[in-house]
């Protein structure tokens, strides 16, 4: 559906495909992936996984747009994307965490979340929105990013915190998934009460996406500039 509230400069052809907000989000994702691949060899393992994950999300968003204009249903894509996200984030945080026990714990949590997500998709079918899958993924990532913050504080370097790639990864992940978790929980409540879904839900999710992938872009940039220094202190 074409929104009549698009700015006058926005091309009509493009408006038929995507909204300006979505286009901006897609460009952030695409530029993050491209930038990540150009600096791929300079990144640590965790950030290499993150680049791969961001590029998978870019591909899934492309497919979802195609599906939106062919079968007018984007939901199935997310049923495939979320398990990939669970595996990807588990590998990323496993690489970032220093404690062997925490690494084992994150693998255990990741496995549990993955089983829950796949089971839910099988039970509910690919046609329903995977809100529970997103909620459990959010919980996993909120816990992981909180622990990453704890680890950053416990292992300070001489660098300013804003110049540490892991800080931006944790900020983006925490803000996005805490926000998503709250929004989806509230949505469930609103639906349960029979209210109309508030208009701000979609724009808010879009803004959270900007924050998430914007932060990842910053973290790729910082990590590619000085990947060694950060790991020397941590290892």
């Amino acid at each position, binding site marked *: 559906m074409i929104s009549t509230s698009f700015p006058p400069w926005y091309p009509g052809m493009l408006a038929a495909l995507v909204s300006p907000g979505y286009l901006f989000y897609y460009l952030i994702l695409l530029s993050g992936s491209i930038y990540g691949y150009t600096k791929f060899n300079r990144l640590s393992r965790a950030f290499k996984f993150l680049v791969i994950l961001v590029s998978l999300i870019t591909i899934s968003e492309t497919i979802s747009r195609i599906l939106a204009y062919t079968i007018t249903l984007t939901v199935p894509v997310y049923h495939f994307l979320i398990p990939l996200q669970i595996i990807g984030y588990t590998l990323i945080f496993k690489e970032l965490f220093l404690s062997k026990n925490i690494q084992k714990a994150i693998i255990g949590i990741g496995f549990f979340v993955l089983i829950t997500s796949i089971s839910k998709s099988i039970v509910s079918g690919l046609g329903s929105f995977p809100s529970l899958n997103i909620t459990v993924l959010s919980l996993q990532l909120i816990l992981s990013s909180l622990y990453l*913050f704890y680890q*950053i*504080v*416990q292992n*300070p*370097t*001489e660098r300013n*915190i804003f110049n540490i790639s892991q*800080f931006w990864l944790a*900020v983006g992940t*925490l*803000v996005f998934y*805490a*926000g998503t978790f*709250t*929004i989806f929980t*509230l949505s469930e*409540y*609103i639906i349960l*009460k029979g*209210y109309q879904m*508030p208009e701000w839900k979609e724009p808010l999710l879009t803004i959270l996406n900007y924050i998430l992938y914007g932060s990842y872009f910053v973290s790729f940039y910082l990590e590619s500039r000085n990947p060694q220094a950060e790991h020397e202190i941590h290892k």
Partner: protein
Amino acid sequence: MKFINDIEFLLFFGTVMALILIAFIIMIVILYRRSQLKILLERQRFQQSILETEVEIQEQTLHNISRDLHDNFGQIASLIKINLNLLSKDQSEIDENRISESKDLLTKLIGDIKVLSSSLAAENLAKQGLDKRIESDLERVRRTGAIEVDFLANYEDQGLKPEETVFLYRIFQEILNNALKHSQASRFEVHLESSAAEFSMKFTDNGIGIKADKLQSKNRGLSGNGLINIRERCEMMDAQCIINSKPNAGTQISIRISKS
């Protein structure tokens, strides 16, 4: 507080959540800064203790050399002099002259060993007084005629700790050594000044100056550790060290230390 409906409550709840999130990130930044400061302090303390150990080892080595010079070389030189005195008088005139010349050289050698031994040993420095020791060293340099020396001391009571006195004396030795070996100066001035609150030493020479790269270098190289030694000792005493030098315009070094 009464909410008009559930939606307003949800909006309020969402805003509170967002604010908590922002507050949490700010808290992380503050905690990280604190953690950084703590580590920085620990690192400084560690470096300080390394420096102190280094200086302690240096002082112990100098003390051992000083004792060996005094007890061993000094004694041997004295014994040689006694033996020369015990030689029979029926020598040829040429041999008599040679013996007399050797005795003079030995007297000079014994004197030099004593001076060197006392300049290396720091134990009596505080008792003797920094000014007296510096003056005596400068007097020895003046006698050699290698450089014109000017000494001005303007204080009554130094009020310095014994270890500070040793450090200041070692700094003086380093600067004097630099002036004699590297500066190509024809004049060297030392000015000691003391007030109730602080003590200062100023050294000026009219030599070729110190190269900018050496002056700014913080790394120990194969040569030129003198400036680093001076700076490290000043750092350990919490003293201010200012070194001004330009090519062919001499060098001025000023050391200031607060009296505790």
